[in-house]
């Protein structure tokens, strides 16, 4: 049986005029007196997506892409080029273009060409943290279509106020091979699936949407285990019906209880991005220079963990060939770690944490999150809710955003309740919550014992690059945050 490396290598370089030793000698052409490192990143990806609307399979799309990205690094400078084709003819001009950076390079470090390349053993012998099988081939088109129709039928059967159901199912199979003049030679195979259900419910000329879904580095058959896909359908309907009853959200500062799982998007925005190494090396993050200081309440321990089995944000190795890791970012409220790629780790004189990720061969890697979550605390979730005299309980969110320099972040509710005297009184309309990352984290006064991860739907955007991520948290209470409703 082939190793993961061999499978990745054969997928990327098979049926081309390139092999590993040719690539190694071509990569040697990147090296010059001022170049510290050269890197080639090969990638092939196949995608299959189906969509269902109004009970019918409306369309499907198949996609295939592949190419090679070339980096030459000189001190803090990077030259980058890529080719949409994996061949000697395509690689040669990309190498020349990436090397252009050398002309203005300032580093005086001597070139470091290792004598020979060996697959990076730490990475290669590691166990697969997810199945490697191609999720596109793993289920027949007939079975996929049956599953989507079933989800449609389940959603419609819940309630006659459901007027529209849309279901999508996506599968991606990615193989990557990275080689670097620091001796890295590493490959990985990464499946990814995702189902989304969107429901419109109508009553008395009011109309609301509910969405749910999930996935991960798994096979599509996972969606059928324990009738999971039916749960997504019922959850989407529940949210749509709930929002038909929603009243205007309040406006102003108040206590907010966040539910377990997906509301962990709070951590992704409030602290996650601010702890990415590039922003801290450059001193542009609100968290820059705060290592070891109290940046959150002592109840908060936040980690980024690429090693969780099958999760959407999990990575056996990152896109620079560094093994995926578990990095404690905040421990008992104290800042303990930044997330780094190779370049920023070197410039910050720290260990690389395996967070170097890129959207594709056509993008430069940079420090990115994987699965980011808060560990459970001592409190019973019921007790947390009971402690709120007047405020909001937010159980689900849409997206969020952060300004890493000021620390200001937002996230928007998709399921929220007005809380009075410790009880959920009625659902409220979607509202944006806004706060300053460090201030909000200091105001976390209770942390639940009901830790959960999200269902596998997160996409993180940074500098125009999207990557899949996971989030998670237990129920937690923030004593004061601004709720952007309309009712004062």
């Amino acid at each position: 049986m082939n190793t993961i490396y061999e499978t990745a290598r054969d997928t990327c370089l098979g049926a081309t005029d390139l092999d590993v030793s040719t690539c190694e000698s071509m990569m040697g052409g990147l090296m010059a007196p001022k170049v510290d490192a050269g890197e080639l990143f090969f990638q092939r990806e196949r995608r299959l997506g189906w969509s269902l609307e109004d009970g019918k399979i409306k369309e499907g799309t198949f996609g295939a892409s592949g190419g090679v990205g070339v980096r030459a690094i000189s001190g803090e400078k990077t030259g980058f080029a890529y080719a949409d084709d994996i061949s000697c003819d395509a690689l040669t001009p990309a190498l020349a273009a990436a090397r252009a950076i050398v002309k203005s390079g300032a580093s005086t470090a001597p070139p470091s060409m290792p004598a020979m390349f060996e697959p990076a053993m730490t990475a290669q012998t590691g166990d697969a943290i997810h199945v490697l099988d191609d999720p596109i081939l793993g289920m027949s088109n007939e079975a996929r279509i049956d599953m989507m129709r079933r989800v449609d039928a389940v959603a419609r059967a819940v309630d006659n106020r459901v007027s529209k159901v849309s279901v999508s199912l996506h599968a991606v199979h990615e193989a990557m091979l990275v080689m670097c003049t620091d001796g890295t030679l590493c490959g990985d195979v990464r499946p990814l699936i995702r189902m989304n259900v969107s429901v419109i419910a109508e009553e008395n000329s009011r109309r609301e949407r509910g969405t749910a879904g999930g996935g991960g580095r798994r096979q599509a058959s996972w969606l059928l285990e324990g009738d999971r896909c039916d749960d997504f359908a019922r959850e989407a309907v529940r949210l749509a019906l709930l929002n038909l009853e929603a009243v205007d959200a309040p406006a102003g500062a108040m206590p907010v209880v966040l539910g377990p799982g997906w509301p962990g998007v709070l951590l992704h925005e409030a602290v996650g991005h601010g702890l990415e190494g590039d922003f801290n090396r450059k001193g542009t993050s609100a968290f820059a220079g705060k290592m070891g200081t109290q940046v959150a309440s002592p109840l908060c321990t936040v980690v980024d963990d690429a090693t969780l089995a099958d999760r959407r944000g999990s990575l056996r190795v990152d896109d620079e060939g560094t093994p995926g890791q578990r990095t404690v970012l905040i421990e008992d409220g104290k800042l303990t770690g930044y997330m780094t790629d190779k370049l920023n780790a070197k410039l910050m004189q720290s260990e690389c944490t395996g967070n170097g990720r890129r959207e594709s061969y056509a993008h430069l890697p940079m420090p990115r999150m994987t699965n980011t979550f808060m560990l459970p605390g001592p409190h019973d979730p019921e007790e947390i809710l009971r402690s709120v005299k007047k405020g909001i309980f937010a159980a689900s969110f849409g997206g969020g955003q952060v300004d890493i320099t000021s620390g200001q972040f937002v996230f928007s509710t998709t399921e929220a309740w007005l809380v009075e005297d410790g009880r959920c009184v009625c659902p409220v309309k979607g509202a944006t919550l806004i706060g300053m990352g460090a201030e909000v984290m200091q105001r976390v006064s209770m942390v639940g014992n009901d830790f959960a991860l999200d269902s596998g739907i997160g996409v993180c955007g940074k500098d125009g690059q999207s990557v899949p991520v996971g989030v998670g948290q237990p129920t937690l209470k923030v004593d004061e945050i601004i709720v952007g409703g309309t009712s004062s």
Partner: protein
Amino acid sequence: MSLNSLYDLTAPLCESDGGLPDIASRWIEKACKKGVDAAEISISQGAGYTVTVRLGDVETTEFHQDVSCGITVYAKQCKGSANTSDLSPAALDEALDAACEIARFAQPDACHGLADASLMATDMPDLNLSLAWRMGIEQATEMALACEDAGRGFDARIVNSEGASLSSYGGRGVYANTHGFLGVSNGTTHSIGCSLLGEDANGKQRDYWYTSARSADALDDAGSVGRRAAERCVARLGGATPPTGPCPVLFESEVASGLLSTLTSALSGGLLYRRESFLEGALGTDILPTWLSLLERPRLKGGAASANFDGEGVQTANKAIIDAGQVATYLLSSYSARRLRMQTTGNAGGVYNLILHPQATKTRRELLQDMGRGLVVRELMGQGVNLVNGDYSRGVSGFWVENGEIAYPVSEVTIAGNLRDMFRGIVGVGDDLDPRRHVRTGSILIDSMVLATPA
């Protein structure tokens, strides 16, 4: 590749069709031989570079070269699509086969198919969209450095930089279908931008500015871009907190452009037939105040989103989307049109340059005076726009206005309302037109939204 001939990356894309029409025609023929009822293909190619400098030195030099091809087939009212980044015959054959295979599994839908043959574009004037920037990378680097230097030297409170960058891209594309239509397009985009950090006793703030145009001649001077970024950044320092409650809100032209895009999204066929738009059934009703119209101008020379034909080959033409406040048309592709039992409006792929009429009613200063006491929105955060019901709630950075003058910068606040009320509540449009966007508008003043703040 020599450093000083970098424009060679974009120039060929601007000046020739690169053989793309031949490829498109060949695979349309191949699709016909597969026995499909109809097929369409689009191929695009682009190339360019981005130079980023930070703190007075080069940080990255990136070269981009992208290819993509999409093939769609229709067989017995079933649709299948495939795309590839590889234009080799083997890859294109594989994509065509995959599209045909998918169409076998999809279910029939009478609304699928090409747009009507009679609507295909025949008038194809040169829209002046493609103008290569003949400049070497050293010059590009110098210009980016000048931009950042001007910004960093603007004010002592500018303490750090996220860098300045210059980029130049060119691309060409072809769309063909089994009606025998084949259209080519090309275009360049050049830009210079800068992002700076300022600091005072209250903390750090970041802001940016950029200039972007089809032609390098139309760009703002690099130094002025850096200074504008610095000016915007220091203006954010020393914030205070206004009270929670209703107040008038002025969307600066950059965010006003986004607000009008929200309106055109809600009028788009995809959302309408899915019943996901709060503007369902709004055709012929008043959405904007009666003194205001929103016009589409697809064939502006050098326009950011100019095109002779839409994503299905349909000829574009000027039209009023909102006429004297009233919805004059939805924005439809052939598919969404058939779903709604209407005609395509030539908006497959979106809208092609929008302008307001009148373009401006007041100067910005007059708008602030009209406002008296309220909020100026400079930056919006988050995705709190619900097009199903029109609910709007977003994070804001901007300025508080007292007595018609900017009083202090504001952050960590939200504004909320409903888009129906916001559009009807437009009371003025400023003369500070943002030329960079495909939605060209000045600042927009809205009579009232609810502001939520720590106070």
